[in-house]
């Protein structure tokens, strides 16, 4: 690598001790390298990184380390709904008749009564039918 080609590495402090000393000697004699080095230094200063917008960084944290769990905000509402539902179930259970404690004899009597009535109607209809034909 020619001496002039080392100006970039020199600017970035990437030459080892011997190379650096040799290039500094070259630099004293080479106006073009001095000028290039000067512009490189000025460019480093001019392009010093400005701060990233705080809003962008805040938004990043909101999406990562400070992200709230999906259910976190809903916890009180979910707990309230669950309690309300449980209370409602208990109230309704208290108002409903106990369907397992029915009186079977009443049902049989009701069904028999209806059956008898239907049977009588059917018999009457049959008698009328036979009379006509």
């Amino acid at each position, binding site marked *: *690598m*020619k001496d*002039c*080609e080392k*100006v*970039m*590495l020199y600017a*970035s402090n*990437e030459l080892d001790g011997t190379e650096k000393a040799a290039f500094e000697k070259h630099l004293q004699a080479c*106006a*073009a*390298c*001095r*000028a*290039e080095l*000067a*512009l*490189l230094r*000025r*460019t*480093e*200063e*001019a*392009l*010093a*990184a*400005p*701060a*990233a*917008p705080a*809003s*962008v*960084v805040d*938004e*990043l*944290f909101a*999406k*990562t*380390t*400070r992200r709230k769990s999906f259910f976190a905000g809903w916890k009180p509402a979910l707990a309230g709904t669950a309690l309300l539902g449980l209370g409602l179930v208990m109230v309704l259970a208290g108002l409903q008749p106990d369907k397992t404690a029915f009186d079977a004899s009443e049902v049989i009597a009701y069904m028999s009564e209806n059956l008898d009535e239907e049977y009588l109607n059917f018999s009457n209809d049959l008698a009328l039918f036979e009379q006509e034909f």
Partner: protein
Amino acid sequence: MDPTLTQRTDDELVLLFKSGSGDAFEELVYRYKNSLYQYIMSMVQDEGAAGDLFQEVFIALFKHADKYEPRGKFKSWLFLTARNRVLNFFRDRDQLTSLDQTDEEGNAFLHDTLPDGAPSLLEGLAGRETEEEIRRAALELPQRQREMIYLRQYLSFKEIAELLNRPLGTVLADCHRAIKKMQRILAAQQGAGREVNI
């Protein structure tokens, strides 16, 4: 936040983050937010897109830190991830124009063409241009050269060569061409300024 985190190396912070420390992740963000944002912004030239891409890079780290191998190259990993996001951004916008194009200017390396002892245009410029003029000149560079000038702010040439998968000599030549191009832009700006003053 634990004040000792600022003393930790990048790899130590990644390991701490892997073990559940959100503070370690935030320290990494604080450490690189300005340089990374500036690099992305210099490439895409769009504040909204730069903000989105910046977040995407760190969200990739947040989600896939387990895939990161701690070999002391976190900064290179971060900038490589950013570069890939920028490339995708241009692909999406059909603007993959010049990031990986060969420079159209086949200048001889360095100042071989200058006559011995002649003061170069660079020499005449150095120190007179303002920081704002330099920033404007950097933004006027072709994308490949602009990338080089900005990456040089945060990475060594050896790291840049590794990041871009190019020979060190190519990277040095690109940076040299970038500086020469800036010199011409600055000379033109100052020439125009003088014409206006006259």
